[in-house]
């Protein structure tokens, strides 16, 4: 039997979510880059312009979902890269805890910023 080299549990939730968020991020990251560099130029971004974009509930929800998907995909990707490099035992548990906390902090801060931009708080 051929050895498996993936760091993911076969058929696991993390493996599946990494693929689902990937498919979502492909579309939204391309849209984000296109909108803020080619339609609106980043150098001309103003607080008022950002507030106007974030006032649209669809755009606001897309951006928050983009943040959650990006944070999960990135943090889970880093964790798996480290597992690939041979991380195991207690250091593996510590890294998982630190990365989870960092990911949650990122989502919390980003959501707070998004709410401020949308003038919801």
């Amino acid at each position, binding site marked *: *039997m*051929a*050895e498996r*080299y993936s760091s993911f549990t076969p058929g696991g939730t993390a493996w599946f979510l990494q*693929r689902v968020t*990937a*498919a979502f*991020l*492909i579309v939204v*990251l*391309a849209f984000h*880059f296109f909108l803020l*560099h*080619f339609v609106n*130029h*980043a*150098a*001309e*971004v*103003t*607080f008022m312009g*950002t507030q106007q974009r974030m006032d649209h509930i669809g755009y606001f929800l897309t951006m928050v979902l983009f*943040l959650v998907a*990006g*944070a999960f995909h*990135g*943090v889970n*990707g*880093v964790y798996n*890269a480290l597992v*690939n*490099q*041979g991380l195991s035992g207690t250091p593996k548990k510590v890294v998982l805890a630190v990365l989870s906390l*960092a990911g949650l902090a*990122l989502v919390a*801060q*980003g959501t*707070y*910023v998004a709410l*401020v*931009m949308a*003038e919801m708080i």
Partner: protein
Amino acid sequence: MSQSYNRGLIEDFGRWKEFSAGMWAWIFHKFTGWMLIGYLFTHIAVLSSAIAAANGETMMLAGEQVNAYTGTIQGLEGLFIVRILEVGLLAVAVFHILNGIRLLMVDLGIGLTAQDKSFYASLVLTGAITVASVPTFLSGVGL
């Protein structure tokens, strides 16, 4: 019976001279992934200046009083090095997206025999899109 294949330890980057297309794709995907998640943390930190702006904080930008968010973003965008870093970010993001599509195809078992060619295609397309975006990214900034 499936055959056993000993690929050796590819995590040992010292073996880079023996690497084939698929291994380079794997390394580039990891490298670009690290860059992108690092950037996401930085990005949210910069955008957090919106909190200061919402509290009425202002700053000087090119002799004008502007809110903290507009001043932070336009101040950064006024720097040549930031524009260069943005071109680099685009290159990194485009490669990660294209190679990510390639990986989803591999997962689905589509085009497995062309996995090396699709890696080269990802590289060429990344280069082309990056070069084509340079005028947009460098517009209106001086050295």
